[in-house]
């Protein structure tokens, strides 16, 4: 595997592109959130976008295992065990994900299947809906922009396209520079009968959840701490996903302050815990 010519380059481009994709998707998601662009009539666009973001995290999680190194092995153990924490459906779900009781070669081939076939299939479907809606409904305009104001326009060809091409060029160059100068290592081969190595941690976009789990005490009242922690993240994610349906103000054209406060709170929480996870 390490003998393939330019294998390191392809691997690095793949990893960097994947990470930048998540980053871009997260930024896009927050900008849509703060602009309330999810509001009526674009609820479905928001929903498909969020599902694609979750799926993107799924891509990241399944892809993380594929190099079959130590970190990946334990990250997958923990990640699938988290699924096992969900009441009732958790255990069967975990066995389904792992392809058995433990993380083994069966898990590896399963994750490969998810990563290259199942997820891309679902993703394509969501992406088509997302893009068709964007195309049909047009871009959302910021709230408070009065309808009568004059819009600046530019021809798609060549003006807009040239701008787009310029951005592509910049991004591709950044990607190439990152891949060449900061290649992704393969790490040490996974050994199911070795202890989890010190300093183990997941990809950066899971860090805030990972760090939070470290602080959750083992038992809270009658619940296992991790059940509660994971449950809270699940509920928070669901509420976030459904924002177009409970933020009634923005669909009436009003800019409610609560949405901004909640959003800022979430961003601060994620930033603080990511930084803690990175340095501790």
């Amino acid at each position, binding site marked *: 595997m390490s003998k393939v010519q330019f294998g390191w380059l392809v691997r690095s481009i793949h990893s960097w592109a994947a990470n930048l994709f998540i980053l871009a998707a997260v930024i896009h998601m927050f900008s849509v959130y703060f602009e309330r662009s999810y509001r009526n009539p674009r609820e479905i666009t928001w929903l498909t976008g969020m599902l694609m973001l979750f799926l993107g995290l799924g891509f990241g999680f399944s892809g993380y295992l594929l190099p079959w190194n130590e970190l990946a092995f*334990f990250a997958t*153990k*923990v990640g*699938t*065990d*988290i699924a096992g*924490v969900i009441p009732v459906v958790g255990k069967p779900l975990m*066995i*389904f994900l*792992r*392809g*058995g*009781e*433990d993380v083994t070669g*069966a898990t590896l081939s399963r994750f490969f299947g998810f990563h290259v076939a199942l997820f891309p299939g679902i993703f394509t479907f969501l992406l088509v809906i997302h893009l068709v809606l964007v195309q049909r409904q047009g871009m959302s305009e910021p709230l408070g922009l009065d309808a009568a104001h004059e819009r600046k326009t530019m021809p798609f060809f060549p003006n807009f396209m040239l701008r787009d091409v310029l951005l592509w060029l910049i991004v591709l160059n950044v990607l190439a520079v990152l891949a060449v100068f900061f290649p992704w290592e393969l790490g040490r081969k996974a050994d*199911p*009968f*070795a*202890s*989890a*190595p*010190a*300093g*183990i941690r997941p990809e950066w976009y899971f860090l805030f959840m*990972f760090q939070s*789990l*470290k602080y*959750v*005490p*083992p*038992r809270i009242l009658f619940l*296992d*701490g*991790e059940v509660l922690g994971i449950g809270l993240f699940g509920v928070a994610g669901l509420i976030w996903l459904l924002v177009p349906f409970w933020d009634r103000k923005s669909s009436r054209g009003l800019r409610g302050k609560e949405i901004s406060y909640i959003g800022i709170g979430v961003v601060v929480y994620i930033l603080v815990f990511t930084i803690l996870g990175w340095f501790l």
Partner: protein
Amino acid sequence: MSSRPDEFAPLPSASGQNVPLEAGQERRDFLKLALGGGFIAWIAAVAYPVFSYLKPPKQAEVEVTSVKVGKIAEIGKDSGMIVRFGSKPVILIRTADGEFRAFSATCTHLDCTVQYKKDLGVIWCACHNGKYDLTGRNISGPPPRPLEEYRVIVQGDEVSVLKKT
């Protein structure tokens, strides 16, 4: 039921005569049922094999009850090692005063494999900084339960780990 909307108007039959109202309705219901049922059956026929295919096959697990680890002399004092116990990892610890202890090495938090941490004299899980003392009790961090204990037997100079019954 005296005034029906237009869509329930009698259907013309093949012979051009109007089929009585009730019969047309029945025929329509039957078609709906047949189509709907057929569709559901089709979905099931596709989904069932897919799900069965994805369900991991039951593996006949060989029930391991004891594992020979090695000679006493090979296991240094104040050290720990992971022993392969069937498909599960077990941690065998030899304390500073030469005593043997064995526990399941699977962290009770989220399934990582623990290790013996010499400098602290505890069993440590690197994943979320969980700690257990040398009796397997969870003493700090997120682990909710103690580690399951195994029995260690020394016969002559041979060390084995056994499942507790």
